[in-house]
């Protein structure tokens, strides 16, 4: 039985098709989020890659910022539960999950079965979110996906002390104009995000293993900064970006099993 999970974020749409809640058959990532054609493209792409049609899907669950807008999903779940389930599938030993999403940064505490036990989220402010990183990458004129490798070259990370995105932006500009090394600035930006998120992790309690979920986990600079702030190693799975969608596909499978159809 195939199930589909779609994670409609604010900046990207990720879809996954799984068989029997066990095997990932196909996945797609489109860099367009809620309110765009991104979710539809991700859906079509994943079906095509799995070589199946919509009729072959036994159940679908949507998650992410645009989860309420997905009409083919029977149900929606918050990204909190889906990231918990998804990371549990990818890294069964994980008990703390950090996810830096486009709009929300969150730290989850999960149980041995991948169930969500507790969580902390950022306040309304964009500091410590993916959007903050995007704005900063733009100021540095660096592609967001290159920020990680750039920051790894830093020798003396600068300090970015403002939490407000707009003020931090002008802080970065003034660092640039005082000819600070761009790698040092990138590392400073990552450290500033890591500080915000580490505060949340401290609130929830950083029970090992600590894993990172979501697309930002692919940024090695952020992972390193977080490891330093939390004084612990952080596990990152190559499919981390798909964790939300995987969790959604698994939730769809669990529902089918509960209903006795699976």
């Amino acid at each position, binding site marked *: 039985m195939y199930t589909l999970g779609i994670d409609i974020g604010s900046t990207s749409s990720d879809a996954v098709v799984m068989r029997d809640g066990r095997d990932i058959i196909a996945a797609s990532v489109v860099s367009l989020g809620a309110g765009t054609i991104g979710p539809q493209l991700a859906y079509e792409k994943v079906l095509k890659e799995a070589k199946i049609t919509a009729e072959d899907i036994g159940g679908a669950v949507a998650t992410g910022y645009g989860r309420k807008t997905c009409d083919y999903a029977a149900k929606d779940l*918050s990204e909190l539960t889906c990231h918990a389930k998804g990371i549990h599938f990818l890294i069964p030993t994980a008990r703390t999950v950090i996810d830096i999403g486009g709009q929300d940064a969150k730290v989850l505490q999960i149980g041995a079965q991948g169930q969500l036990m507790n969580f902390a989220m950022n306040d309304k402010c964009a500091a410590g979110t993916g959007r903050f990183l995007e704005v900063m990458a733009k100021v540095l004129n660096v592609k967001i996906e290159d920020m990680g490798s750039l920051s790894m070259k830093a020798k003396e990370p600068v300090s970015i002390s403002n939490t407000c995105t707009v003020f931090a932006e002008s802080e970065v500009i003034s660092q640039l104009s005082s000819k600070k090394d761009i790698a040092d600035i990138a590392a400073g930006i990552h450290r500033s995000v890591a500080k915000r998120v580490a505060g949340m992790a401290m609130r929830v309690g950083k029970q090992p293993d600590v894993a990172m979920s979501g697309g930002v986990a692919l940024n090695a600079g952020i992972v390193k900064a977080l490891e330093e702030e939390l004084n612990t190693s952080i596990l990152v799975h190559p499919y981390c970006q798909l964790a939300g969608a995987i969790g959604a596909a698994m939730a769809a499978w669990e529902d089918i099993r509960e209903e006795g159809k699976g």
Partner: protein
Amino acid sequence: MSENNKATEQAAPAKPKRPKPKSMIMLNEQTAALAENTRKAKEKGEKIGWSTSIFPQEIPEALGLYIQYPENVGAGIAARKQADPYLQTAEGPLEYNNDICSYAKINLAYAEAMNEGGTLVMPDFLLVANNICNQVTKWFENLSKTLNIPLFMIDTCYNSEDYVTESRVKYIRSQLDQCIKDLCEFTGKEWDEKRFIEVMDISAKNKELWIRANELLANEPAPMNGFELFNYMSTMVCNRGKASTTEILTQLNNEIDEHLKNGTSTYPVEQQYRIFWDGIACWPYLGHNLRTLKQYGINMVGSGYVKAWALDYESNDLDGMAKAYSYCPANNNNMSTFIKRRADAIKQFNCDGVIFHINRACKVMDCQQLEAHRRISEITGVPYVGFDGDQADYRNFSEAQFETRIQGLVEVMKARKEAQNNG
């Protein structure tokens, strides 16, 4: 079922609208009467007052003065989604900072520029008790200055201890005595000790009835939708010393008793989760908040308002009154009192979760909230979520963020319930 199952949602037939309960009709009549009577009194040349919400109203009530409450009116304006022009005026031509309390912004704009035809009659004097926050002091001082009217103030001080010290009791008591003298002198009214005792007795009765109505929600399932009690708060704010309030609250208690007897509830769907709500309602989004909670069968059974008017003092005991007015309000307390009150209520109402309104308007409420979240959760073992909002400034809230946080809380509460059921 805790998740948003779309099939079930679509299949649910539309329910006919419930007729307004008698207590609510009585409450609306009381609100209209206060506005109308105040307007008439002003026309007759009587002196009208504006007051903060937990002022010792027994004094002006005993003097037969007409008092209105800007916080309450601000909440109404915000709930009706009419706050925008007031907020714009306050932050624009009046040059108030965006960060001040949104009730203050609305009222200062009202008083200084936009009072044509409003429910608040322009005042001749002001009554301030800073037992809710110190921001009201500056707000009312500004009113006093711009309207050029006197301000009568009771300075209660912050509760740094878990009790009110004797020196503070003396300090506040002497202000109560002075306030009676000053108000008599300013309004030309005569002090009547018998009437004062009568008002104290009525107020005590109303306090008991209010607490009783709230505490009945500790029953399972709760006989009432907790958000509805927010509406009845206005009778405690604006008419706490009046016999009409006794009638309303008696009627409300009878209605709740009736629900308990019949096993019914005004909560419209099956109650799956019981939560404690900390902080003022997010008035501009009350409907949205309620709909979001209802989607998961969450009923707010407890809130900080249950004991907000638990003003315990013996009749005609002014020292006791001084103590009560200092200690009772929900905000003005040190960390240990703040935590204890909430933890006790969460246990009393058998809550599955807590929703903290991180209210951008109300600094005194927020300043210790984050640490309190953690400690209350440790004491009670109950999960919580905080959301950013504002009681009256609609610009400080995001519907999507609220929805995600509530859904997350539901998923945690569900997982915990399942874990409990499975031993």
